[in-house]
């Protein structure tokens, strides 16, 4: 599926144009569990900071989220441009604040930097990068069945449906 059509579904269904998220910053200690390497390590670390592993569910990279995004990014000139500008901004900011690459920072430091992107001016490249990648990563992550067990009774709508729909949901 093309990136645009995914966004369209969610906008049209709800009459919403793409908007801006409120700031809600995660401030938890810890490092990304698997430190990725390779040419796209920086992007993978960024995506895993948006969606880290916790006790109940895996990190985005464990479900191949960053890889799927990269596959699409590589096919789209405009996404590629946004991607490289966004990554450049992350590293530049990491150097300014901590004299390190983004990938070498601790999680709380990465969180601080992403929060700056989130709160930046609407028209800024870092804000656009954050917004687009956040929503996209969430889409890919939460459409993966390995994330569903923490939502109790959730499965694809068919073929079984929800015959128990008129009872209270089972406790997880």
């Amino acid at each position: 599926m093309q990136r645009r059509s995914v966004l369209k579904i969610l906008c049209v269904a709800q009459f919403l144009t793409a908007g801006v998220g409120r700031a809600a910053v995660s401030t938890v200690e810890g490092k990304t569990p698997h430190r990725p390497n390779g040419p796209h390590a920086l992007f993978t670390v960024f995506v895993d900071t948006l969606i880290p592993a916790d006790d109940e569910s895996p990190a985005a990279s464990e479900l191949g989220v960053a890889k799927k995004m990269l596959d699409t990014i590589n096919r789209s000139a405009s996404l590629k441009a946004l991607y490289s500008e966004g990554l450049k901004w992350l590293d530049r900011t990491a150097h300014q604040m901590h004299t390190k690459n983004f990938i070498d920072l601790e999680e709380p430091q990465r969180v601080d930097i992403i929060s700056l992107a989130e709160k930046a001016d609407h028209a800024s490249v870092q804000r656009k990068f954050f917004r687009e990648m956040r929503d996209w990563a969430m889409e890919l992550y939460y459409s993966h069945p390995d994330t569903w067990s923490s939502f109790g009774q959730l499965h694809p709508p068919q073929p079984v449906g929800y015959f128990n729909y008129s009872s209270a949901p089972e406790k997880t």
Partner: protein
Amino acid sequence: MQDFEPEVVVVGSGAGGGAVAWTLANAGVKVVILESGPEFLPQYDYPLSTDDWELRDFPDQPDHPRYTFAELQNLDPKLEHLLSRSLRHGLANTGSKRLAGQYMHVRGVGGSTLHYSGEAHRLHPDAMNMYSRHGVAADWPISYAELEPYYVKAEKLIGVAGPDNQGARWRSEPFPLPPHALSYASRAVTRDSTFNWQANSLGILSRAYRNRPPCNYCANCNRGCPRGDKGSVDVTFIRSALATGNCRIETFNTVTEIHAGKNDEVRSVTVRNTAGLTHEISARVFVAACGALETPRLLLLSSIANESGQVGKNFMETVLWQLSGLHKENLGSHRGLPVDTVCWDFNAPHSIPGAPGGCTLTVATPQSYLVGPVAYAHRVVDGWGRQHKQAMREQFGRAITIQSGGAFLPNDSSYIDLDPEEKDLFGQPLPRINSYVDDTTTKRLTFMQGLCRQVSDEAGIDTIVEEIGTYDQFVASHVFGTCRMGDSPEDSVVDRWGRSHRWKNLFIADASVFPSSGGGEAPSLTIQALAIRTGEHIRDQLARRAI
């Protein structure tokens, strides 16, 4: 088609076209339906069993623009309370003008009912006399009592499930199927409400019926029902029409012109398909059932049936307020039916002070697509990182949508015309939407907003995540009125049977004939009842050789 000489050509296979074709085929009349879209294959085209189900919507993806908008009105700073907004995204429209959103519809066998939520409503009887009672819109040339037997026929064919009593909308026979049980979520929302709620009447099977299985409450009707229990026109009217052997359907065939013949009769239609082939089809009778945008467009393109100057005029659109919020408890609200509960308390046309035309109230959580974690991550749960994951777990299943749909009154600035510049695949002007939300509508919307907020408060919804309305953005799934039905050829396009006042063998059977919109009722059942009535009239006229 060489071996099949149609007596009647029906253009369009949606709510109206399917019902008129079924009526005629069932009576032994040979009918051909010309449909510009494809046939969808439910098991294949609506893949609700795959892991990525939430990333897909109904599969009708226009490859070419189908309509345009004339410039829409300036927003009034005094009506700031009616701006759509969400906690995550802020205002939906940050500009100074109303946004040109979407006319939600489907091209294909079954038309827009493929995408619909299955609500099957009769019109409030008083909503058919808006002019004589309230001095607005126009009266219907027929009464509720005249339409009632046709409602019964449509309900039986579809297998509508509904309650014993719906107040003013009296019935001569019970619904063919018992109502669906309310979902746990809808019960929780309506339990402490001051309003009166009941099971919605739905064209969705509560029991197996006529070789179709009962619903399994997967909550995703708007993505297309792969089981065939939703009573969309393809699995009801058209399936039954084809089974008679008297009906053929030609997909990817667009009618581009209706040709006048002698003696005020239509001679033929020009049909074009996507492979570039063009041909002409003759018949004794022609029925336009292309929906309230495309039917007036076809008539305007053909310069036919517009003796009154009313073709395209009186355009009426969806008036909607939708509030989504988080209930304090996990209700498992991703399960069930799109719109299972309704309140008719404000549906009579006099219910809203200063704004004639009523409204409905419904609990419509699955219809608002809040049925999976992707929608929650986009629209409900803000942020990212560890806290976001935790919040997703805490909030999933708690989202509730309360919706109100209301009347739209015709006004001089709301109409469909031909776009002077933009063309379709065949080089013909696209229909252009001219839409204006007037003061009465904004008053009604304000009232509807208040109702939704009251239900939300009484239900213990503690966080409102979105409020969306149609004041600041044109978004319509219910459109009507553009070839109004009436007794006078001076101010209406078709008569009480759906026949052109001048062209003896030209009929219209779709939402464009509505003289008034109703007060938020879902329109398909009324379109179908009218179309069956039109079909029976054509049958009788053909039998008497009056056409």
